[in-house]
């Protein structure tokens, strides 16, 4: 395992940092307040090459390995303060792009991937339902085959990118009597008849990433939009969810590093009782813990990236990485507010937003409790 970057990787990472620093950090406070998605920044990220990092070059991507990809996303999270934009990019990459790369037909890849890479298309998935969250495969949305198409009925909730997506990977059951084996993935275009993703949902954090409730009412999807095999949805979902768990918080590691540096600066500048607050052991101790969290998170992330790039089994590592990074991010953001005192609670200081943005990480891609269940089952409990 070697995490020493080659000259080429270093160049790529530096380019990501510079791009994000100079191109993505405008109107972040206003967009967060008004829950506005930054379309222009999305397009720039596509043109720059973020969305296509992992995609093979023949489909418009950059063909980077998983380790380089997570390191690039970490650098993106460090330099870009719009966590919502990054959350949308992550949802797009792990829940739409990855299933297409691994399970798409040649025609589907040619049709969708170049646009999903260059920023002209936005993807996402629709899995969770009002009555099926952690118990994901108990979903109630149905897909009935009728000649050359599937007819979808049902509703989905918490659909990241829903209001802005051009294409969603939708999970539905073709035969409820088959249980998990009936779950099927379908590519649903935004203009499919009977598809409605216009109901936006307000939320606490990552507010610049739009989320929708999605409805299918006799929604017609051409049969060639079947992604993978009929009944293969469980396998497909598990595979993309493993990628998602391992990688989705890569940018959070960068965000933690940024918070740490901001806190160290503040602890040195802020004087109380005749000395920098960083000289007080209670504050210093928080910063040391923060440093440990950032470093351990980074090591778990790179370890996961290396394993994924060497085709090793990563189911356990993905769950552990997701769990540790989510908890570390929330704790770092909370401590960052505490170190900044009253100022940290003020919007202008851009610390409180980080906490609101971080908290969702303990819920999406499987709650912290679900990750613990997975880990427990894999260590023999």
């Amino acid at each position, binding site marked *: 395992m070697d995490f020493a970057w080659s*000259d*080429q990787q270093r*160049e*790529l990472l*530096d*380019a*990501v940092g*510079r*791009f994000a*620093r*100079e*191109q993505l950090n405008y109107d972040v406070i206003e967009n967060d307040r008004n829950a506005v998605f930054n379309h222009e920044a999305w397009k*720039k990220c596509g*043109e*720059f*090459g*973020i969305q296509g*990092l992992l995609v093979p070059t023949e489909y418009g991507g*950059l063909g980077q390995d998983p380790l380089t990809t997570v390191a690039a996303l970490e650098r993106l999270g460090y330099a870009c303060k719009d966590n919502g934009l990054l959350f949308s990019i992550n949802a797009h990459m792990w829940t739409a792009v990855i299933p297409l790369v691994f399970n798409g037909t040649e025609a589907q890849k040619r049709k969708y991937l170049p646009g999903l890479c260059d920023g002209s298309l936005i993807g996402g998935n629709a899995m969770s339902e009002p009555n099926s969250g952690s118990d994901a495969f108990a979903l109630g949305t149905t897909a009935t085959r009728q000649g050359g198409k599937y007819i979808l009925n049902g509703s989905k909730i918490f659909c990241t990118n829903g209001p802005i997506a051009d294409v969603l990977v939708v999970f539905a059951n073709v035969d409820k009597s088959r249980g998990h084996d009936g779950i099927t993935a379908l590519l649903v275009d935004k203009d499919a008849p009977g598809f409605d993703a216009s109901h936006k949902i307000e939320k606490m954090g990552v507010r610049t990433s739009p989320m929708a409730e999605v409805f299918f009412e006799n929604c017609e999807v051409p049969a060639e939009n079947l992604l993978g095999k009929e009944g293969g949805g469980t396998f497909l979902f598990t595979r993309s969810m493993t990628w998602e768990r391992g990688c989705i918080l890569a940018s959070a590691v960068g965000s933690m590093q940024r918070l740490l540096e901001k806190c160290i600066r503040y602890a040195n500048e802020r004087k109380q009782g005749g000395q920098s607050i960083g000289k007080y052991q209670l504050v210093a101790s928080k910063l040391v813990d923060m440093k440990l969290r950032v470093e351990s998170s980074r090591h778990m992330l790179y370890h996961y990236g290396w394993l994924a790039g060497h085709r090793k089994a990563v189911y356990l590592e993905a769950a552990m990485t997701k769990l540790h990074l989510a908890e570390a991010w929330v704790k770092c953001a909370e401590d960052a507010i505490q170190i900044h005192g009253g100022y940290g609670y003020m919007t202008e200081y851009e610390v409180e937003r980080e906490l609101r943005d971080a908290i969702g990480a303990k819920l999406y891609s499987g709650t912290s409790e679900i990750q613990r269940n997975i880990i427990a089952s894999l260590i023999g409990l």
Partner: protein
Amino acid sequence: MKILVPFKSVLDPYEAAAPGGSGATAKSVINPFDEIAIEEALRIRERGEATEIVGLTIGPAAVDEQVRAAMAMGVDRAIRVDDARSLDPYTVARILRVLVEEEGPQVVLMGKQAVDDDSNQTGQMLAGLLGWPQATFISKVEFLENKTRARCTRETDAGLEVIEVNLPAVMTADLRLNEPRYVSLPGLMKARKKPIDVRTCEQLGVKVQPLTTVISTARPPKRCAGMRVESVEQLVLKLKEEAKVL
């Protein structure tokens, strides 16, 4: 039309770098004014008025990172004169002159100055050595009469000055000429396949005899706290005796 864009690698002005440090850990970037010159050359090519853009720099192998950044922006090919010494503007202009004569561009477009030594001399000296017209501090350029002349807007202390120069000419870019594009990752990957032609001063027949020597560098003194004075008389006295500015 061929455009030659000489550029310099400088320490990243956004990253804190200690003056007098070795610079070993500090990151380098293309001098921001040169980056503006590169961007302008790309725009000239994009509107169909230039066919080739050749990048040109002087520095050790580590500078290849900035060379690739220039090529990732869209420079077609690049020449690096391998020399790790810190060179004065006159020496740089002499090296550039040899390569300009070899390449035969219609325009040499570069930054008005480098942000590290702020000399603001190389472009002017190069024009002098070549006997070419010069348009310095430009904020706009357009080509006239089948690209035999150029109309340039110069930013001067007195305001905007519009001049026309015959080509070939040397132009130096000011801040407001354009906003450079960012290097994209696909561009960076393509740049790895573009050739870098590495030369030496000996091959070019330029004898390097530094005309200036850096004796020392130091941080500017820290600003101390101000003080309140009771009267104008006291102020004048303090300005004379303590600040010694009167």
